[in-house]
C-alpha cells in the first residue's frame, strides 16, 4: 500500500534475497526451532501437516503447541498480533481434530493448520478493530466469508494481526495500537498494510495468514518479510466481512511460506458468495492440482513463456535497489526458460494518480459509517454533530483523516467529472493498454 505521508524511513538499502531456501532466523536465535518433522522448504507445509496428522506422526495438539510456543517467544520482539486467541480454546480445537482422527473420522483439508487473520477482516469470536481506535473492542456479529470457509475446512484461527489503520499505509506504522517489526531485522518495518500477517508467517508464528490488498498491501509486505504473498483478481474472493477501504479495488489475499501453501489457501477461500454482489460467478478451477514441486521440474520449465517487462517500471526515477531487484527477477525468469521482451506501457504513469483518486473517494464514503453511534468508541456529547465530530476526530488516525478529506473533496459538487470520473477513465485506459500489450506478446 503506497503512502503519501510517510517516506519509508528504514528502507534505504534492502538486500535482495531472491528465493531463499534456507531458514536462518539469526535475529531470533533464542527462539525454539519449529518441530523438525516434515517441512521441506519447497513443499507445502499444509500438505505436510495433513500427511503427518493422518499418518499419526504428529498430533494437532503437538503441532499447535510448537506454534504457540514460538508465537509466545517471538511476539514481544515483533508484535504481529492485536489479539491472540485464548490458548486453551486453540488447543481444544486441536484436540478435537486429534480425537476425530483417532476415531477415523474425516477431517477437513486444513485441519490443524494455524492461520492468522488481518484485523480488518471480521471474526465473530474475536475483536476486529481494523487497526483503529474507533473500533477498539468491537466484536462483529459475523465471520467474514473467507474466515468461515477456512474454519469450515478445519483451520484454527490463532489471532488477529496488526495493520495500517483500515488498510491505509505501507509500513504498518499507521496502526493505532502498536508497531510491528520485520522478523528479519527488528529495526525495519514489515511493510504494509498487512504487515502483521506477513511478519507472522515469516516468523513461523502460524502456517498461513490472510491479508487484504487494495494498492499492494499483500504483495509489498510479503516482499519485505520474505514470504509468498498473493493478490487474487478482484471478485475471486468474497469481500463480505472485509472492512471496506476502496470497494472497487479491495481484495482479501493470502500469505504463506511457499507458493503451494499460498495457493491452497487461496483455493480454500475462493468462489462466488451471494453476500457479495461483486464476487465472480466464474467457476474456481482446482489450480492446486496443477502444482508441480520445484524439485521435480525439468531444467527450463517455463520454456517458451513470453513475459513483458514494462520499461516504465525500471526507468529513470526508480530506486536503484528496486531496479536491480526487478532485473534480477527477470534474469531468473530467463533462466527458467522465459522469453523476456521489453515493452512500453505509455499509460503507466496514470496508474498512481488514478488509484489515489479512486481509493480516497471510495474510502471517504466507506468510512462514513464510523460515527460512534451504533458500535465502537463513542465520544460523549450532547449534540449530534459534535458527537460525530468528536468520535471521528478522536477515533481516526492522521493518515485516515487525510484520505477522507481528499476523497470528500474529489467527490464534491463540480469535481466528480474532473476527478473520480476521470480516474475511472484512466483505469479503463490502463486496462485496455495492458490488455493489448498482452495480446501482442501472445501473438
Amino acid at each position: 500500500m503506497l503512502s503519501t505521508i510517510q517516506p519509508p524511513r528504514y528502507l534505504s538499502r534492502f538486500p535482495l534475497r531472491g528465493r531463499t531456501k534456507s531458514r536462518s532466523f539469526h535475529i531470533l536465535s533464542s527462539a525454539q526451532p519449529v518441530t523438525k518433522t516434515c517441512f521441506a522448504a519447497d513443499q507445502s507445509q499444509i500438505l505436510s501437516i495433513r500427511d503427518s496428522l493422518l499418518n499419526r506422526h504428529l498430533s494437532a495438539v503437538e503441532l499447535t503447541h510448537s506454534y504457540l510456543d514460538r508465537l509466545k517467544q517471538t511476539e514481544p520482539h515483533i508484535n504481529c498480533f492485536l489479539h491472540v486467541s485464548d490458548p486453551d480454546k486453540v488447543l481444544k480445537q486441536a484436540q478435537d481434530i486429534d480425537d476425530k482422527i483417532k476415531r477415523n473420522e474425516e477431517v477437513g483439508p486444513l485441519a490443524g493448520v494455524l492461520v492468522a487473520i488481518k484485523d480488518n477482516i471480521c471474526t465473530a469470536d474475536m475483536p476486529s478493530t481494523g487497526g483503529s481506535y474507533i473500533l477498539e473492542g468491537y466484536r462483529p456479529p459475523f465471520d467474514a466469508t473467507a474466515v468461515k470457509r477456512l474454519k469450515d475446512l478445519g483451520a484454527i484461527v490463532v489471532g488477529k494481526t496488526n495493520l495500517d489503520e483500515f488498510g491505509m499505509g505501507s509500513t504498518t506504522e499507521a496502526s493505532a495500537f502498536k508497531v510491528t517489526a520485520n522478523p528479519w531485522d527488528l529495526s525495519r518495518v514489515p511493510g504494509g498494510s498487512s504487515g502483521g500477517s506477513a511478519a507472522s508467517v515469516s516468523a513461523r508464528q502460524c502456517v498461513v495468514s490472510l491479508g487484504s490488498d487494495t494498492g499492494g498491501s499483500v504483495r509489498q509486505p510479503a516482499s519485505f518479510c520474505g514470504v509468498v504473498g498473493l493478490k487474487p483478481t478482484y471478485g475471486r474472493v468474497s469481500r463480505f466481512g472485509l472492512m471496506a477501504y476502496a470497494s472497487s479495488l479491495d481484495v482479501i489475499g493470502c500469505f504463506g511460506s511457499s507458493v503451494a501453501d499460498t495457493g491452497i489457501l487461496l483455493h480454500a477461500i475462493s468462489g462466488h458468495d451471494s453476500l457479495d454482489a461483486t464476487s465472480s460467478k466464474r467457476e474456481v478451477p482446482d489450480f492446486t492440482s496443477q502444482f508441480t514441486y520445484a524439485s521435480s521440474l525439468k531444467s527450463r520449465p517455463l520454456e517458451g513463456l513470453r513475459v513483458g517487462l514494462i520499461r516504465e517500471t525500471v526507468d529513470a526515477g526508480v530506486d536503484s535497489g528496486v531496479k536491480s531487484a526487478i532485473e534480477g527477477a527477470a534474469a531468473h525468469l530467463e533462466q527458467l526458460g522465459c522469453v523476456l521482451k521489453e515493452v512500453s506501457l505509455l499509460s503507466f504513469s496514470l496508474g498512481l494518480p488514478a488509484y489515489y483518486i479512486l481509493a480516497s473517494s471510495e474510502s471517504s464514503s466507506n468510512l462514513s459509517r464510523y460515527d460512534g453511534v451504533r458500535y465502537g468508541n463513542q465520544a460523549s456529547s450532547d449534540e449530534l454533530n459534535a458527537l460525530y465530530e468528536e468520535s471521528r476526530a478522536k477515533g481516526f488516525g492522521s493518515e485516515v483523516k487525510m484520505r477522507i478529506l481528499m476523497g470528500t473533496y474529489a467527490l464534491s459538487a463540480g469535481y466528480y467529472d474532473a476527478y473520480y470520473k476521470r480516474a475511472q477513465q484512466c483505469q479503463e485506459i490502463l486496462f485496455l493498454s495492458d490488455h493489448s500489450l498482452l495480446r501482442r506478446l501472445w501473438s
Partner: protein
Amino acid sequence: MGLPGALPVLNSKVIEFAVKLGLALNCKLSLNSKFDRKQYFYPDLPKGYQISQFDIPIATGGYVDLDLPLEFGGGHRKFGITRVHIEEDAGKLLHSGNGDYSQVDLNRAGVPLLEIVSEPDMRTGIEAAEYAAELQRVVRYLGISNGNMQEGSLRCDVNVSIRPVGQSEFGTKVEIKNLNSFSSINRAIDFEISRQALLHSQGQSDQIVQETRLWEEGAQKTVTMRKKEGLSDYRYFPEPDLPEVILTPEYVDSISNSLPELPEAKRRRYEKMGLSMQDVLFLANDMNVAEYFDATLSSGADIKLAANWIMGDIAAYMKNEKLSINDIKLTPQELAELIASIKSGTISGKIGKEILSELLAKGGTVKGLIEEKDLIQIADPVEIGKMIDKVISENPKQLEQYRGGKTKLQGFFAGQVMKLSKGKANPGLLNKILLEKLNGQS
C-alpha cells in the same frame, strides 16, 4: 446497521416491481441502469450514505391519466411523471415528547423503495391529492404495495411554487413534509398557495425562500422546518458494491404481458358500457370491486342493475360490517342470479333485498333460498284477487272509510295483502287489482 464489512445485495423483487410500475405509468424503461451513493450524515442513515439512483433511474418520462371526482368539479387530467427510481429506505426516528432524546429504529433501513417524481403539472391541492390517490390505485392494482399512507407504505412530499399570471418561469419552490393522508396533501397545498399569494400581494415575495416546511395537522398550516442554503452536496458517485441492472427485452415483455387491466383502462371501458362517471369512479377505484363487478357481468347480469346493487346495498353492508368485497359470502354469480330473478319476476324486488342480506352474511344460492323459503312471487291475478277479497272482507270498516273518501287506506289494505301473501305478492299487480276492487270495479 452499516456494520463494518457488511455489503448490500440487490433484492430482485424491487426490479420486478419497478418495471411493473414504470410500464403502468407509461414510462420509458432504462434497460441499463445503475446505483449511486447519496452521501450525508444523519442518525437514521447507518452507512452515512443512501444507495439510490442518481442520473440513470430505472424509468423516466411517463404520465398518469385520471378523472377528478364529480364533487370537485370532475374532468379529465393528465399529469407527467419525471422518473421512477429505486433506493433504500433509511431508519425511523422517534423523538421523545420533551425533546430530550430521540430513538433510531433501524428495522426498515436498507429495505428497497420506489420513488416516483412527478412533473410540476398540478395546479390545485385536489389535483395533487387525486394524483396521489391514482398512484395508490395503481400500486394496489399492480400488487406491488398496499399503498397505505398511515402505515408508511406510501409516503408523499410536495413542492409548491406560485408565479404571476403570464410568467413562464416558475417561482421559488417550497417543500412540504409530514403529509399523512390525501386530504392533508390537498389542504397543505392550498394553504401554501394562499400563504405565498398573500406574501406576493403584500409585496413581500422575497420572503418566499427555498425551504422545507412541516404541515401541522392540528393547526392546519405549514411552518418552517429548516432553511436550505442552496442545494445540498450529496457527493454522488456510482455504487461500487452493486453491479449494473440490465433488463432484457424478453424480461420486460414477460412483465408487460402479466400486467392486469389498469385503472385508467378500466375507467374507459366502464365509460363505454354506458355507466355514469360517478359509477365508473366508484367501481374502478378498488380492483377487487371491479373484478367482482366484471364477474357479475360475465354471469349475465344487467350492467346498470349490477352497478346499482354493488354501489348501494352491498357497499352499505361492507361499510357496516367493515368488510372488504373479498370477505362477503355473496358470489358474483349469485348476484347475477338475484338480478335475473327479480328482472324475470320470479321474486319481487322487496324479497330480493331481503334475501340479499342473508346471502351476504351466510352465502348460499338464490335458487336455494327461494325454494327453501317459498319466496316465489305471486303474480297470478286470480290468486291475488282472492287474497284481496279476503282482506277486504275482514276489514269492512276500513272499506267503508275508504269508500267514504279516505283513499290513503289503500296502503293499509296493500300492507295487509302483502302480509297475507308473506310478501310474495307482486306489488304492481296487487295495487292495480286492489284499486279496482276497492273502487268496486270487480
